[in-house]
């Protein structure tokens, strides 16, 4: 069975960002990246800013800032603190309202998705019985408080299309959500970033459990 960390990122929500000011020149000016770090493909229009660097991709919409390390597996907490923390500290007046850490895992079983998800999630309950057919597939939603955040885990089968080929995989979407309620939003964001490693480790452990329990 193959498992892949397809994505890992930090999302900040504010009311609201001004994408127009966050461009590559702004990042260089504030010492967050150097000119050599910037890759091609930048976008800077009134409602959207997108910057590619050799370490991360930054996307800013009016409602949301998304910071995505290119390699979430290897990116350290310290690197995120320096890069994203640097951006946040230089925009202290932004009315931030929430911060979240996301990990997207894909589990591709050796057996069919029907068999795999049935072994993980099927229970002898009335609703489940309705889907108790040869083509029935299953998923799950879990949530709990952890690391000062609300962890929400969505699990469902998806089809990933790559050019002509399609692969069916079980998508496990982890969202560690933190509403920012204190006066000092910047500090609260930095504290949330500090759980990156633990959050990643926890998501990995859950994926390992799913692998074990779904192993046929």
């Amino acid at each position, binding site marked *: 069975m193959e498992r892949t960390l397809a994505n890992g990122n930090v999302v900040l*929500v504010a009311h609201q960002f001004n994408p127009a000011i966050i461009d590559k020149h702004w990042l260089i000016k504030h010492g967050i990246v150097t000119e050599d770090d910037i890759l091609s*493909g930048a*976008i800077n*229009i009134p*409602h959207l800013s997108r910057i590619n660097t050799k370490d991360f*991709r930054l996307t800013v919409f009016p409602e949301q800032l998304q910071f995505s390390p290119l390699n979430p597996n290897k990116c350290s907490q310290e690197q995120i603190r320096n890069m994203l923390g640097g951006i946040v500290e230089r925009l202290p007046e932004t009315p931030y309202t929430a911060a979240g850490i996301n990990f*997207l895992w894909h589990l591709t079983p050796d057996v069919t998705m029907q068999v795999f998800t049935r072994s993980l999630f099927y229970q002898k309950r009335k609703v489940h019985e309705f889907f108790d057919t040869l083509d029935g597939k299953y998923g799950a939603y879990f949530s709990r408080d952890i690391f000062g955040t609300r962890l929400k885990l969505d699990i469902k089968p*998806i*089809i990933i299309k790559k050019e002509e080929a399609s692969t069916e995989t079980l998508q496990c979407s982890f969202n560690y959500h933190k509403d920012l309620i204190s006066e000092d939003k910047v500090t609260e964001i930095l504290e949330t970033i500090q759980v990156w490693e633990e959050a990643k480790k926890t998501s990995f452990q859950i994926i390992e459990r799913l692998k074990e329990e779904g192993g046929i």
Partner: protein
Amino acid sequence: MSGITQSLPEKELDKLPTVLASIKNVTHEAGVSGAASFIHQDIDTLGPDLASIQRIADSAGQTNMALSIDCLRYWEEAANALHISIDWKRMSEQGSSTEVFRPTGRIGDLLDQKIDAIRDQYSFYNNVETEGFLRNNSDLVPILFEAIYRIRKYFGAAQLKLRYSEDPEGTGDNYLDLAITTDEPVDTALEKLEAFDRHWWLEAGKDESRLIIDIEIE
């Protein structure tokens, strides 16, 4: 809960430069800001056109055009951003595109405004399905706005109808029928449709299989 912190898919966000640049075939690093300026230029060009639509509609007794030039500004950019979110939403178990996606925030509000404005100009045959299809194919909205102006040039105040249609062969390639209702003689109406096709739709709609424009004789 203060907003959703789930992420947008990087794979889809990576398509942004291509999507934006393709709007006016500008090369990318010219950059996308080049494309954006083209969009604004288009909107400015559209201004007088909208004014002419208004005049045609006024003369036909339709005073409530509900088309705001200010509202259209940046619409294409927002629609493209939205389109990406929708693509993400479509990445479900069966790759289905029939699920209605209700985006949140300003982009969602903007889409609501646009669909309301579309509804002011077009009669919807099958309301729920047509609106659902428009929400899932929001990049058709600017085309439908432009179609109003183009159609009015030839057919004046003809009633415009939108109907969601499913591909009879069940391939899942569903589409919208745009019917231009006219009481003109068939030959005249067909001549006008041919001119409309020749001057706009054959080129503008050459890669667009989700919208079929035809006449309906009353």
